[in-house]
């Protein structure tokens, strides 16, 4: 990539030379659909918060751009002992944005905080039982028993490294004006409207970020984000309506990009209720759905049909195919299960999620073909979660995204019961899957562990506690002068590498 870099540098240099002026302060303006709730990494799980935190804070290690491996963050190098019980990190000479150095003490404080009672992510870090600070820039973490995801979990936003002294001094107020070691510093946060960031002068990646300021404009309406982009009010629009992608790409001065991140969309089935307690019924529902038509009609081609409620990520089985679309076979299965005349059910959907709403309407029409009469019920997203959590539902359109590159997080969420969400509120339970989950966490990374994941996903596919829908693409649209913007497989985006070349 060095030749490319040189060419760009040359172009940039000549551009500067031609204008004969020093470059003015460059601001990158991004229209984002979510308003962050909090900048405290252990208190949040919403995308707006996570994405913003990852611009302000840094972690020891972080997922690389391909989403297939980890790359150094604040840790310059590390070693993992053969038994997986000892993790040693060597910190680089990094500084927080206020100039104080990032020390091993800050690391211990931050990870212990992430494992504490008030953390929403504590079970990710509790297996790390002790810390040993060798010196300011070396820390050793000990696990009492093998826990393979531990290393990966340190790449999660919840394990962001915070300056101990300041957090202890300011308490919760720290997160209103946080100080981190990430590429940007928070300048101003007007809730519900915009987040203004400025370049962190002490960022460890020298020369980056390339832009001087970044502004995240909160624009909840997808079409409004696109209009702002076309009017030149923003440089990047996240998640434009998928049906507008093609048109947008054809417009002068605007280009679009998309990636299928680690995400799977599905319909949760309440397996404690009839008829969803019958595996045959659940399989029949899967066969009644034309997934290709959904991808075309609802995602406008920007996505792939899904074979399970798992994103396609590490250890995924390329052979696992989605349920075939076969309404006749679906009807037969329903008849076999005693529902020859179909049944009635209610389908919950987030009223604010246009794509899910369209999917629900399509599902309603498709299920009608096999005699299943679905009544769509729109709910506010938060209420939908509470409703499915309490078990007071039949079916519900939802999705899961992975914030890490290791499938442990997401299989624990969608497949394991009892666990965090009891197989994402389906209350479906497979003893074999639970067993594999326990095993996988003790098995070192490699083929054996991969086999366990493949078996778990296969069980999930076969017993079908969900109607598996699709893996939708995440898209963005940007002005042509914005270079190197992309969405990562973990759904977030980095801005330190983005350039504005007007």
């Amino acid at each position, binding site marked *: 990539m060095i030749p490319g870099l040189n060419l760009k540098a040359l172009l940039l240099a000549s551009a500067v030379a031609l204008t004969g002026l020093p470059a003015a302060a460059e601001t990158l303006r991004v229209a984002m659909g979510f308003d962050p709730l909090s900048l405290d990494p252990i208190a949040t799980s919403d995308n707006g918060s996570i994405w913003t935190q990852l611009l302000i804070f840094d972690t020891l290690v972080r997922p690389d751009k391909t989403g297939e491996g980890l790359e150094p963050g604040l840790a310059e190098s590390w070693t993992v002992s053969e038994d997986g019980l000892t993790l040693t990190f060597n910190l680089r000479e990094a500084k927080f944005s206020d100039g104080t150095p990032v020390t091993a003490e800050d690391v211990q404080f931050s990870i212990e905080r992430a494992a504490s009672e008030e953390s929403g992510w504590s079970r990710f870090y509790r297996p790390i039982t002790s810390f040993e600070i060798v010196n300011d820039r070396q820390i050793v973490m000990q696990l009492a028993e093998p826990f393979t995801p531990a290393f990966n979990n340190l790449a999660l936003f919840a394990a962001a490294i915070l300056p101990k002294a300041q957090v202890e001094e300011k308490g919760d107020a720290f997160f209103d004006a946080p100080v981190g070691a990430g590429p940007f510093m928070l300048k101003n946060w007007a809730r519900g409207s915009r987040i203004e960031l400025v370049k962190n002068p002490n960022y460890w990646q020298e020369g980056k970020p390339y832009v001087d300021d970044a502004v995240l404009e909160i624009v909840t309406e997808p079409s409004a984000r696109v209009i702002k982009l076309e009017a030149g009010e923003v440089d990047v629009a996240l998640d434009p309506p998928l049906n*507008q992608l093609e048109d947008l790409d054809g417009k002068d001065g605007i280009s679009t990009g998309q990636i299928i991140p680690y995400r799977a969309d599905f319909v949760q089935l309440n397996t404690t209720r009839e008829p969803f307690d019958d595996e045959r019924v659940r399989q029949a529902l899967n066969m009644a759905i034309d997934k290709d038509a959904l991808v075309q009609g609802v995602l406008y081609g920007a996505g792939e049909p899904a074979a399970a409620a798992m994103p396609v990520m590490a250890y995924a089985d390329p052979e696992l195919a989605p349920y075939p679309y076969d309404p006749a076979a679906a009807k037969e299965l329903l008849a076999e299960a005693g529902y020859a005349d179909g049944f009635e059910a209610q389908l919950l959907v987030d009223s604010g999620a246009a794509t899910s709403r369209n999917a629900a309407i399509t599902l309603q029409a498709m299920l009608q073909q096999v005699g299943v009469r679905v009544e769509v019920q729109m709910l506010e997203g938060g209420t939908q979660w509470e409703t499915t959590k309490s078990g007071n539902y039949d079916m519900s359109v939802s999705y899961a995204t992975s914030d890490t590159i290791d499938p442990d997080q997401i299989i624990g969420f969608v497949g394991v019961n009892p666990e965090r969400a009891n197989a994402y509120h389906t209350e479906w339970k497979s003893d074999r899957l639970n067993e594999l989950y326990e095993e996988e966490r003790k098995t070192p990374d490699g083929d054996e562990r991969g086999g366990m994941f493949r078996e778990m996903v296969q069980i999930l596919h076969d017993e079908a506690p969900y109607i598996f829908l699709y893996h939708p693409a995440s898209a963005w649209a940007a002005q042509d002068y914005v270079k190197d913007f992309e969405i990562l497989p973990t759904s977030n985006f980095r801005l330190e590498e983005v350039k504005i070349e007007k």
Partner: protein
Amino acid sequence: MRVLGNLLRTVSGAAGLAMLIMTMAATVLTPFLSPYDPFALDFANAMQPPSAAHWFGTDNFGRDIFTRVMAGAVYDMRLALICVFGPMAIGVLIGLVAGYLGGRIDAALMRLTDIVWAFPFYVLVLAIVGVLGPSETNLYIAFFLVNWIGYARIIRGETLLISRLEFIEATRVLRFGKLRVTLRHILPNAITPALVYSMSDVVLTVQAVAAMSFFGLGVQPPAPEWGLLIVESIDYMRDAPWMTVFPGLAIVWIGIAFALLGEGLSTALKPKG
């Protein structure tokens, strides 16, 4: 019949009534005349602009918008009429009782209307539906709880006024029963302003029903209720503006019809001389 005659003699009344009858006829006839099913998906024909085959174009699911808008009239008219005339009946009753009986009952009932009146209409309806959960039934409950206020106040005011008129004094002298006086002599005279008000109320209610769907709190998809049609069209407004425009025009059309009818009624019901 005399009222109808008077109504038809006013330009606005005749026009409003004609528009309403046209709408009703189109609503009733469309299911028989349209070759399209308002609910069947046909992705291959998605987002077609208006044409001879699809007068209002098709939506993102390939459904014929003309058929859907016509089918949607049933939802909007039903909701609006029930949400206006149901609460109106309650309001009229309460207004009569308060106005005729007076005293403490009147004071109590009027304080109650003050309380409900103190909240902005949308805030209250949103709060009630929010608590009960979104559905058509709960929408009715919310409107019934809120919408009677205006009628109660109008009728009470009229009742107070009419009770002091000579002909009511006369019924007292004649020792007519209270109930008979109220129903036979006060109500017919007091109802006129309430009836006129109800026409503009229908207009506001059609909008409110559409707005509730817009917030996701009213009628549920895939019902072709007009507000729902609009909310579903937002992301497509730039590629397929017909998806938004025609349901919007339908709301405007029905609004004008009732507004004209109200205008005509107020003229037709005005006492001569």
